[in-house]
């Protein structure tokens, strides 16, 4: 079997699929040419992620990673969401095949981008360096 039972569960029954109208922060990463795009919508109240939804164009592990990542940050403070790593997402899914690890990277990046978008929209100061993700990271992840 290519994927773990956890991956298949989150792929077959994805949690938090959809759109949040008037979201407080939206982050989209990936590109259609590479075959995967992930979009995360956040509803934030008092620095807490009260709701999160995702839309994903991609393979089974991309959909499962989005689903798992949204579950892991729902109800959590922003500071915790920003600490979520792709490794933690992959581990929560009981692992991803080596060439699919980039899917978990996309999930981490989409969340960070959505939070950054929230900060930008609300004029909240932040250290841009903390959000500077390497644009090449996605491609490298894919080759791994």
């Amino acid at each position, binding site marked *: 079997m290519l994927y773990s039972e956890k991956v298949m569960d989150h792929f077959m029954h994805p949690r938090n699929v959809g759109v949040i109208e008037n979201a407080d922060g939206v982050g989209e990463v990936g590109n259609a040419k590479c075959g995967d*795009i992930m979009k995360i919508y956040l509803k934030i109240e008092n620095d807490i992620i009260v709701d999160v939804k995702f839309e994903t164009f991609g393979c089974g592990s991309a959909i499962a990673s989005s689903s798992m990542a949204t579950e892991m940050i729902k109800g959590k403070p922003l500071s915790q969401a920003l600490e979520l790593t792709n490794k933690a997402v992959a581990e929560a899914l009981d692992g991803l095949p080596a060439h699919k690890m980039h899917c978990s990277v996309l999930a981490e990046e989409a969340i960070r981008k959505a939070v950054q978008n929230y900060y930008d929209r609300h004029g909240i100061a932040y250290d841009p360096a903390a959000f500077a993700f390497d644009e090449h990271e996605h491609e490298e992840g894919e080759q791994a």
Partner: protein
Amino acid sequence: MRTVYADNAATTKMSRAAIDAMLPYMDEIYGNPSSLHSAGQKAAEALTLAREKVAACLGCQPREIIFTSGGSEADNQAIMSAAASGERKGKKHIVSTAFEHHAVLHTLKALESRGFSVTLLDVHENGIVTPEEVEAAIRPDTCLVSVMYANNEIGTIQPIAEIGAVCRRMGVPFHTDAVQAVGHVKINVKEQNIDMLSLSAHKFHGPKGIGALYIRRGLVPVSIIYGGAQERGKRAGTENLPAIAGMAAALEEACASIDRNAAKLIPLRDKLIRGLSAIPHSAVNGDLTHRLPGNVSFCFEGIEGESLLLLLDAKGICASSGSACTSGSLDPSHVLLAIGRPHEVAHGSLRLTLSDENTEQDVDYMLEEIPKVIAYLRNMSPVWRDLQEGKRQYVIQ
């Protein structure tokens, strides 16, 4: 739940005739065909008989058949043979096409690193190469033309006899990778001016790990496996007699059923194509008439192929896709790119390949389930949302 196996271009279920033909050679007739004793000679007779059957199906002489481990090895040996004799005459140019199987393309790449130059012909939007373009590409130093008989992904059938005639007239050896065609369409290597042809048993209900190269008498095959003198010294290694016997039986059966299978499969194929065409922003890949009887290939906008395959599998439908995630590389299928599909659309491809085992009920079931799965995936796709909201332009109208 219903199970529909619609991935016959990947491999087929072995026929009863093929299995029955193999069993004696795994049981009582286990001798080595190279042995002098009677056990060996019994095996040698079976080998001769199998070679005669394969030759008869292709319209060639038994001595023009080399048994190989499959289509890839046959492709390698055909190309390396033409390259070796070309090199001796100072001819180091090869004409092929952009949508060949990797067994051909990667062999050509290896030759390029040895100083050969390769011209890959355009396969056009319909997935068909023209004899005129083959003729125009041939140079004084061309040592080989290699054009696949039928494409493995989009099923388009090439004008092989006409291309063969061009090559014959210009004095250039002509190889065709006929792995997807043998046993499915009528082939006669003499009438179609084919100098070399590759085939693989598991594509026509034979066993895996066995194939053959037809190489016309007069052309010199080179060994790519060094060792003993089997196959007239052109392919070392003890013959896989059970598989060879199974292949011969499967081929005889397949060749005798070509008309009957086509009469059954073409209406099923066309029903699938008509039904899937009703899905908005979908497009069939490849020519609709010059096409293998069982091949259906589509691109759907806004979705990715691997997730489509996983969901179809959960419904009991075994299919295939040319998305990057299923090709095991960064890029989607080179075949879909070669017919001009952009990357983002090629990722959303689906290939259904039928065999005579499939029924109209299978087709109806697929036509019921596939549109639902595509609608479900589009509903969670940000690409589809952008297309619908006009933020992104449709490639397929």
